[in-house]
């Protein structure tokens, strides 16, 4: 009877002592305890909001990162839609282009394709360049809309690419010319 009692006491002590010994985590997952106020590696705002709560101006993304709604993030937020403050995400009607500098849908530059070609060809003749107009694009330049003319200036004697970009405004003026190296 006495021996059994001693055995019980020893076993009880062992249990108490083993409970006091700190068990070191063996894996990352074990080291990440939700609720310890540390947003560990495996924790995020989706699986442990307690430790990884997003700020008030952020939302929790699908992958568990806290994001701010940013113009350019390819998502037209309701605010952007209402305020029409981000044409890059919310798009423009087909007759307008998105000026990403001011994030506004703007009317295309008012100048005919014929006039644009004339200005471009005059430029090529004046500079003695053999070039072919490849395309005329409606785009923006600073706060305004403009025509971008892409000219291929590659010739047989030139084994390397040659491209000239002309920006022509609705007054028929070349506001900038850029040339490949």
């Amino acid at each position, binding site marked *: 009877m006495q021996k059994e009692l001693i055995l019980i006491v020893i076993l009880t002590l062992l249990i108490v002592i083993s409970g006091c010994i700190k068990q*070191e*985590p*063996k*894996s*990352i*997952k*074990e*080291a*990440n305890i939700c609720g310890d106020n*540390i*947003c*560990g*590696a*495996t*924790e*995020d705002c989706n*699986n442990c909001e307690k430790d990884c709560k997003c700020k008030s101006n952020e939302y929790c993304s699908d*992958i*568990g*990162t806290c*994001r*701010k709604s*940013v*113009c*350019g*993030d*390819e998502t037209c937020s309701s605010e952007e839609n209402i305020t029409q403050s981000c044409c890059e995400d919310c798009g423009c009607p087909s007759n307008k282009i998105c000026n*990403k*500098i001011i994030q506004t849908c703007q009317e295309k530059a008012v100048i005919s394709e014929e006039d644009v070609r004339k200005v471009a060809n005059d430029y090529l003749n004046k500079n003695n360049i053999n070039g072919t107009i490849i395309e005329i694009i409606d*785009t*923006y*330049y*600073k706060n305004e809309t403009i025509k*971008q003319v892409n000219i291929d200036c590659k010739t047989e*004697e*030139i*084994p*390397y*690419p*040659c*491209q000239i*970009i002309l*920006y022509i405004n609705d007054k028929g003026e070349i506001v*900038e010319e*850029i*040339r*490949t*190296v």
Partner: protein
Amino acid sequence: MRMKKILVGFMFGIIIFTSLALAVNLDFNIGVEDKIFFPNETIPINISIINRETTFSARNATLGVYIGKREYTFELGDIKAGDSLLKEIILPEFPPGDYIIKSQLNYTGFFDERTTLETYNSFHVRFPEMERLPRNIVIKSFSIPENITAGETYTISIRVSNEGNVAGDLIVRLSSLDVSTSKELHLEPGNSDTVNLNVKLYNPGVSIIEARVYAIVNSIKYLLVYDIATVFVRESNIAKLSLSKLELADEPDNKINQNDMVILKINILNNGTWLASKVNGILSSSIPEIEIIKSEGDFGIIPKNGFSNAIFEIKTSNAKIGSAELNLDVTYTDGLGEHSISIQIPITLSEGSEICRSNNDCQEDQICSNNRCVVISCECGEIVNHQCIKYDCCNDLDCEEGYICSNYSHVCEPSKEIKADVLIATSSKLKSNDDYNKALREYRETILKEGLTSFYILVDSQKVQELFNIQPANSSDWKSVKNVLDKIIYKVEPDYLLIIGGVDIIPQPPAKTESKIPTIPTSDDRYTDIDLDGIPDVSVGRIPDSKDNIIEPIIKGLDSSIKLRKIKIFNKVILGDICLFSPPLCPGISDVNLLSNAIFDKNCKNNEYCYPAPPYCIDLKCENKREFYNYLLNSDIINLNAHGSPFSFSALAADRKWYNVLNSEDLYKLQFNTNPILFTIACHGGTIDCEEYGCITKRGNVFSFLNNGVAVYIANTRYGYGGLTAKYLSNFYKNIRNGKSIGEAILSMKKEELQNSYTDFENAVIYEIQVYGDPTIRLIGV
């Protein structure tokens, strides 16, 4: 006046009273056995001193015992309050007669006053009852030379006379602290004789010499008479100690090696004219690599013109080869008293470790290899019994990703958070090998020394799920890769992203632009635009392998980035087409000047390091081909301005002919003597994707440069544009000169230019500039 006298008297009284009150209360007695002594007996006396005080000590007590001509003095030291001192003194034989013992105790009391206590006793010595004992032996003279010099031999004469009636067999003896010598003598009644004894006295100062005459009866000596003379022994010469020789004990090679345990036997010579006694030495070293294991040595007495040795032990640990000195502080006593001197002990340290036969002959941290003790290299472990027991880990790089090495247990433990300065990303498609793993490890260790921690991840591995709770990426789909990188960058918060591998390993995404130059450029900036605002947020670089899946450019790129870090003085050069298209108008000169000013603070024309092609190019038509190679292959910073493709660089000369600045074949064979940073404005200089030229082989610019020694190559994935690309690269270089790392300099330039861009087209030209190589390199002093 009367009052004053009273006051003085009162004060004096107080002092006397206090003195008496504070005098140490000592019991001082001398005891001698109450019996009759005979002249063949020594006389024991007992001195008893009891300090009955409870507070005061009797300090510096000395005891004087005076019996006839004989005087004895003893130093007793302090007799503390309550202490008792019992001392037995054995007096020598005395001739027959009555003797009074006078004892004097001197000590220092509470007021530092010297107090003397006296006590007396007596004893009686008588002749034994035997007829043959001569009774009237007299010392008639006892002459000692006036000038006695210590250490020299002198003859002392004692004239003895038998004035009694009995003949006697006598012994005449001289005794002092230094000497005890005697001669036998037979004297008939009425006769006298002189005995001459040669003596040497060593102790300088006052010395007492006693002449004794004993009678021998039945082999027993009976003291009949004695006489005492006090002499002054002059100091003679002093002892002169110096190093005689140094011997190495138990040294198989008889050398003190760089790593050694050596027993030194130091011999000291006394070439003075006096013996040195109580010679002790303390060995010390001012050299940190030489440790004194046994520092104290006892040389004992070193006689004049003699030598003595003592043993010391030293331990050397990577000590510098060549001559060194140890210091031996020696204390000794000679004729002049106590001295201390320093003796320099010159030693010679030899290369290597001591000869050994087994590990046991070596220190704990050494092993015996080819009979030499060799220090065990054990940076990451603990040496036990001549073996390096490796730790599980020494730094985080030894642990699996996501685990850190405990500084205490040296065991890898899971990390709660994963943070790193450099995120290194690749995919499982990379055909890694041991060389790659070694190069990567070395690179990570190098940047760690600069304070940059790194984290390495395969974006399509299960580790992504385990560590970051996100599905592994489809490494063929840039959007899937970006999704994973977004999450990892969000958690790890790196300053740099280093992509390892070509487009087959990690795709190079299309830049966030609609502008085609001539197609939408590819750009790794897409991966680092975390908030999706079109502006990259983290510095990015890529070390790609080619379509051929040849991993060498990656290994070389990592290696080169380590080597470039070691350069302190940079050789800079501008090469290539200066005019760009239309000589003699040279529209491109403004671009080149922009770069020349950024790099050299002067235009190309005035720049002795600006070499135009032609004539500086590799084409057969190029006149300065050799010089071109020299500048290209031996510079540390190279700005190459030319027309380009993914495989070559060319220049258009004034004769409207094209010159190869570098063609595919040469590019592939180039071997840089340096590990330069090379940047170019050329079209397609940095194309690695498959869209425009098909998939780029190992002969492409990017792979050839990296494989041949270039550490960082910065180039366009699509067309480069006059006016724009040169401006961006010159601003990049200005950032480098302002102390930014390559990645920071590009990122900073791009952020600024994107924010100030007028058109989407400009954005495309900014995005297409790519860093191939390590973005963390910082070039100080360019």
